[in-house]
């Protein structure tokens, strides 16, 4: 079946612009996760959703970052007033539910802020 998909695959934006990244989880997966992978770094957990709810937003790097999920499916990660340090690969993953540790990852969106 279809895996996790993310769009766009690559995004180049100018500093100060807003960007929106999209994630389509595997059908039926109720939990959805966002991570950031910066050059030479491991994965940094940003936020997760169980259904449409994000119980803990403390992992978001700053108040310029926000995420939402509607209909228990598609999620968008929005970065406002992008900065060069936001350049990274943003990965989305989904799992059957919050208590299922096996997460399925999408291919990521490579964001470059110039």
């Amino acid at each position: 079946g279809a895996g996790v998909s993310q769009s766009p695959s690559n995004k180049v934006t100018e500093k100060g612009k807003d960007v929106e990244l999209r994630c389509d989880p595997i059908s039926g997966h109720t939990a959805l996760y966002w991570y950031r992978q910066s050059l030479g770094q491991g994965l940094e957990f940003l936020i997760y959703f169980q259904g449409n709810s994000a119980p803990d937003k403390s992992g978001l790097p700053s108040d310029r970052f926000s995420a939402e999920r509607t209909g228990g499916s598609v999620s968008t990660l929005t970065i406002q007033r992008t900065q060069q340090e936001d350049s990274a690969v943003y990965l989305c993953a989904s799992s059957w539910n919050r208590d299922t540790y096996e997460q399925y990852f999408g291919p990521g969106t490579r964001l470059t802020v110039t």
Partner: protein
Amino acid sequence: AQSVTQLDSHVSVSEGTPVLLRCNYSSSYSPSLFWYVQHPNKGLQLLLKYTSAATLVKGINGFEAEFKKSETSFHLTKPSAHMSDAAEYFCVVSDPTGGGADGLTFGKGTHLIIQP
């Protein structure tokens, strides 16, 4: 608190020789442990997972890992490397009290290079 240390940022082996990728963890609880692989420009793929069942875990593509509580280790091994194994490998620990993603901690990764 939990943490993961991948002891080698790069490992280079010849094709056909054994692979050893080292991982040590720190966790206040009985953790679940995972290895993920990331091929260039691809998403992360789960190789194997330990969730308090058998301490020797077999995964895909001939990889396996052994959970050693006394050494707080979860090293990844493969008897014979293939060129297709060249990728980035991540060791991951989870805190069961935190449930899903809020309990996941990723190591910084080990880049596996396979020499022909």
